């Protein structure tokens, strides 16, 4: 530990540095996204839910249910892999709310809010950085799936397009969790409420099984569940015969989510005290 007194060095502090023009909304958002990426690098454990979790899900579901549900593990793998990819990415979007809530508790957001930057930049930055987590999740799912014998009929371009659709959906959905993250009292509460929403969204869907054998009331929900639409769309694209209806409904779902929750979230952020 150095024992230098500050008499001499502080002179540079007092040297006036004039304030430049504030950064553009895009620049501020990207800078704050960069911060979140740095945090992922610093604490790689936070990627567990998008790395180990999907591996376990894929192995477990394929070998546990494959024979019983689809007759063979290979056949089930073709069916379930796009579903698990969607489920993993959708579940990963929950993390947005938890990390926002933690950030706000620590007071770093107060500093951001005292700066002359576009106010939603901190939110948009965090959401953009979360896209990296989604990409990791998609890559892990596909790598494990391919190693086990998953063969998408549509080829590389189709797989990339399907993943992009999933990313757009997760980005849209994460506004809900961002909203919860800003309005709930603690990170634990955010997690609890989000999980409550997550289970009917991901499990009560066509991710794991064909809904044709389900009771009517459940099937009715599964059919309108936006996650089901997305899974149908992703399966179609990856298999090489895209389902325009499902793709369309997925995008409509995204638009509705953003239209409703982005303004609510930004409003909650402005009012946050």
């Amino acid at each position: 530990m150095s024992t230098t007194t500050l008499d001499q060095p502080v002179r540079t502090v007092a040297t006036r540095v004039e304030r430049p023009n504030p950064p553009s909304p895009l620049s501020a958002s990207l800078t704050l996204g960069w911060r979140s990426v740095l945090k992922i690098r610093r604490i790689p454990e936070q990627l567990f839910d998008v790395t180990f979790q999907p591996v376990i899900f894929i192995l477990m579901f394929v070998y546990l249910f494959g024979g019983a549900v689809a007759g063979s593990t290979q056949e089930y793998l073709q069916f379930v892999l796009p579903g698990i990819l969607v489920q993993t990415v959708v579940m990963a979007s929950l993390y947005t709310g938890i990390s926002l809530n933690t950030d706000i508790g620590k007071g770093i957001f107060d500093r951001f809010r005292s700066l002359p930057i576009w106010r939603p930049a901190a939110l948009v930055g965090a959401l953009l950085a979360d896209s990296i987590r989604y990409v990791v999740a998609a890559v892990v799912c596909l790598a494990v799936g391919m190693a086990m014998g998953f063969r998408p009929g549509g080829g590389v371009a189709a797989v990339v397009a399907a993943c992009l659709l999933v990313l757009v959906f997760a980005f849209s959905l994460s506004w809900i969790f961002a909203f919860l993250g800003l309005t709930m009292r603690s990170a634990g509460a955010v997690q609890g409420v989000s999980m409550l929403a997550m289970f009917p969204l991901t499990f009560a869907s066509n991710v794991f099984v064909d809904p044709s054998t389900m009771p009517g009331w459940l099937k009715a929900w599964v059919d309108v569940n936006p996650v089901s639409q997305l899974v149908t769309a992703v399966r179609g694209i990856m298999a090489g015969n895209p389902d325009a209806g499902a793709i369309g409904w997925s995008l409509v779902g995204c638009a509705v989510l953003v239209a409703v929750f982005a303004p609510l979230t930004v409003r909650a952020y402005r009012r946050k005290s």
Partner: protein
Amino acid sequence: MTPLAIEAHGLVKTFGENRAVDGVDLAVRAGTVYGVLGPNGAGKTTTVRMLTTLLRPDGGSARVLGHDVVDDADEVRKFIGLTGQYASVDEDLTGTENLVLQSRLVGLSRSQSKARAAELLESFDLTEAASRPVKHFSGGMRRRIDLAASLVVTPDVLFLDEPTTGLDPRSRGQVWDIVRDLVAGGTTVLLTTQYLDEADQLADRIAVIDRGTVIAEGTSAELKASVGRSSLHLRLADEAQRDLAERLVAQTLDTIPHRTPEAAVITAPVADPDLVADLMIRLRAEGVGIDEIGVQRPSLDEVFLTLTGHAADDDTERSAA
């Protein structure tokens, strides 16, 4: 008369039943240090959060450099810096990363940001810790990086919310040096503190705040003068002689001595300091041994006690807001 950098009129903020800030008026002249002094929960932080646009006042108005903190919040944010309990840096990032982040967010270019971060780390004696995550910093280093983050560009008005709470004396002195230097460079500083000597040391003017209102305002000397008299401070060699000593003080100085938390220390208001010589003679005559004796202007602690009727650290019944 220099222009006002900060002016607040009747600021109010309520949280449910609790009127955390209940009609605060402030007037801070440009280029000065203004101390807001009060115990935990007095409303200091809430006031700062309103002045820095983080919290919307429920009543009253405030202007920073002539810009309204509600209607013209974006303009206010261009000129202020904030460091405090609630405005800190990212613990997971390193010192350099935090300062580069901050520099980018005020609009410096990538290369300017790197240069400024390095310069500030050097100035604040943090170069060794530049690549360590902030959570591993000591308390003093932590406070310095917080402060550095507010100074990536020179703020016209700097708000420091309890900048030295919990710091060791050396780190405290460093923060004080930085504040003095900034003011010399033309920055206006508003700082909140629970430490009476800190306000005494740094502030040109002081507002004493208690339960959401300003109960006294003036220079340090004015506040002390408002209490009026000098005070006797007497430390006994043997605390068993306390009762006898108190009686002698009361008789000789014609006053009522205060009991202090320290058994061997007696303090008493003194109308005529000359009488203290008589007191010393009588103490000698009665065989009362003295460790230390002095006549002082009242400390800000005593000012606070006189103004509020309770001691500065007596905040057990109030919640921290």
